[in-house]
């Protein structure tokens, strides 16, 4: 009797839950309703509200910037209370998919830190609200001539994500151990053979970027790979990349039988002298990491003359964002010269700006130019000289997947060095 009553109640509760979700997805609805209205309406709508921002929280420097600098200013200037919580690309997509399957038209996060294939996946699944980024007042200052900002891995943001910062990948070396680092992939290969067991790369995103750089270098430049994904071109490039890796395999750390799981473990190996190079997607990581005591003080960043990959990172609004207006105001603030300048400081985050400093009022341009470069960073003009854009995310996907099956899982056939 009690059990029967309980089951009736349970059914009613479930039905009620389902019924309440039948309205339009919150995020998209807000974006649509604000589409024709002036910016002041957005500000008014956002005042006094909360915004939950899902972003990578693994770097204390970035957290300090967001929690310690951005949050108080948003509160004081716009009355918005921002809370940044953990959430990285793949889990964001998975969770939004689950939320959609469960019919959650109003989710919990209003803003997401995304780029590249995460953006591609979210767009394809229809999990982003938009378009909205063009209507931000500060969007006028964005460097719209830069292919690195206006194309996210060759994808058109189309207003569904707003640029936030840009980085360029670089290698890290120790000036004491390696006074003369190699300057190209060819020199790097020579160096690896001359110093067996002192070089490796990780299983994650950073190493795939490194391999893509190799792919460009062997293939004649990034321009050859532009214009969408070409399977034939990819397969030819993959053969060259894997041949290069295969020829060097016995000379890699642990004879190429195992690879560190992520960049942080690579930094640890590098700092402790197990390997002589590390790598990072942000050339300025070396500055923040030496300050945090993660890398030795003698560490420096450098780029190969064959080119390094530059890309931007963005913020997006999920389809079921509870507070899209607030999210837009936050995104706009992140684009402000104020916030971009602070973010660029070497002692804060050293993340590149997405603004075209020439479009800014003179006082601002001067401040951007005046930012001192830390000696550990790669000089800005060197970076610009060797910067290469990202290409279709499919190259990244395929390279990562094929590396896993063909290189990582493969037991090395020649185990001569037996280290």
């Amino acid at each position, binding site marked *: 009797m009690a059990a029967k009553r309980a089951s009736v109640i349970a059914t009613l509760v*479930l039905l009620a*839950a389902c019924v309440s979700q039948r309205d339009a997805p919150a995020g998209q609805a807000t974006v649509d309703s604000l589409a024709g209205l002036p910016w002041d309406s957005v500000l008014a709508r956002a005042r006094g509200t909360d915004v*939950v921002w*899902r972003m990578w*929280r*693994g*770097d*204390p420097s970035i*957290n300090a910037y967001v*929690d*310690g600098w951005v949050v108080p200013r948003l509160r004081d200037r716009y009355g918005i209370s921002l809370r940044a*919580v*953990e*959430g990285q690309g793949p*889990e964001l997509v998975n*969770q939004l998919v*689950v*939320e959609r*399957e*469960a*019919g*959650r038209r109003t989710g*919990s996060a209003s803003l997401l830190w995304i780029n590249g294939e995460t953006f591609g996946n979210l767009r394809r699944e229809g999990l982003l609200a938009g378009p909205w980024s063009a209507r931000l007042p500060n969007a006028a200052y964005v460097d719209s001539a830069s292919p690195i900002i206006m194309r996210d891995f060759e994808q058109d943001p189309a207003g569904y994500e707003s640029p936030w910062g840009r980085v360029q990948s670089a290698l890290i070396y120790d000036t004491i151990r390696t006074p003369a680092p190699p300057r190209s992939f060819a020199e790097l290969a020579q160096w690896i053979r001359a110093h067996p067991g002192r070089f490796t790369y990780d299983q994650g995103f950073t190493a795939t970027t490194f391999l893509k750089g190799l792919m460009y270098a062997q293939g004649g430049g990034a321009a050859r790979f532009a214009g969408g994904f070409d399977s034939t071109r990819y397969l030819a490039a993959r053969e060259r990349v894997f041949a290069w890796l295969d020829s060097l395999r016995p000379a890699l750390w642990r004879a190429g039988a195992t690879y560190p799981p*992520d*960049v*942080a*473990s690579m*930094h*640890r190996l590098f*700092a*402790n*002298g*197990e390997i002589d190079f590390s790598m990072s997607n942000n050339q300025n990581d070396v500055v923040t*990491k030496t300050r*945090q*005591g*993660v890398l*030795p*003080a003698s560490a420096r960043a450098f780029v190969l003359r064959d080119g390094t990959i530059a890309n931007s990172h963005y913020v997006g609004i999920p389809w079921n964002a509870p507070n899209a207006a607030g999210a837009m105001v936050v995104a706009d603030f992140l684009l402000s010269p104020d916030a971009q300048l602070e973010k660029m400081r070497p002692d804060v985050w050293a993340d590149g700006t997405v603004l075209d400093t020439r479009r800014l009022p003179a006082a601002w341009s001067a401040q951007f130019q005046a930012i001192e470069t830390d000696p550990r960073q790669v000089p800005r003009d060197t970076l610009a000289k060797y910067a290469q854009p990202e290409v279709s995310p499919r190259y990244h996907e395929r390279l990562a997947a094929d590396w896993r099956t063909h290189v990582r899982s493969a037991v090395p056939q020649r185990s001569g060095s037996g280290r």
Partner: protein
Amino acid sequence: MNTGVAGTASRSLASLRAVLLVLFALTSIGPLLVLVVQSLGGAWFFPALFPEHWTLGAWNLMKSGDALPGALGTSVGLAMATAIVACTVAIPLGRALARLRGWPRHVAAAAAFLPVAAPPLALGTGLQVMLIGLGLGGSAAGVLIAHSVPAIGYLTLLFLGTFTVFDARVEDESRTLGATRAQTWRRVTLPLLRPQIAEALIVGFLVSWTQFALTLVVGGGEVRALPLEVFAYVRAGQDQRAAVGALLLVIPPAAAFVWLRWAARRTVVPFS
């Protein structure tokens, strides 16, 4: 008198005890010391036996808006709530199961153990789907429910064992003497079970305290329990802060354990 074979045996047993004592001291206290040093040192690289410079930096950060104090509070709250919720459900459940015989008993006990044994990712996904549907995704309440599931499972088995050997005649006597069911429960049964309840509270606390994957999947990144912060720091290479968090992970349960053991020992009840 220690003579002959018996004497040799007891002497070698004594030296074994000494060796083991030293071994356990080294392997238990050693790593804790490593945590302490790691938390106080910046830039600690091979081959240095001690960090390049000592700094209270990571500990000082706790005073100002670092994630750890909040995460500590979240974990303590979750763990205490889980212990209480799980105990409250597991006691009657264990008692009901103890009366079963035959295949229902096996099925029920296996069902209770299932959430304990299930890989946290699988359990977490199932819970996530259910909780998001109920609107509890990413909330502390949802994570509490998530932690309670394996805790209830484990504690049910504990109480299943307890009530299997529990002699219910004490309760029958109390009822014959005129006590109501509630009075019997409060005045007779519960005091008899105090050591088991204490142990169950500790276990429930620890099940929630050490959870990682469940909190991550169900909390959706919003409920920041201490293990999540420590893991994020380790994955990001922030060893110093990770060590601070790790030390915070040891102290409260150690304290709770000691206190509960002491509290339980004060009730010495013969078990019939």
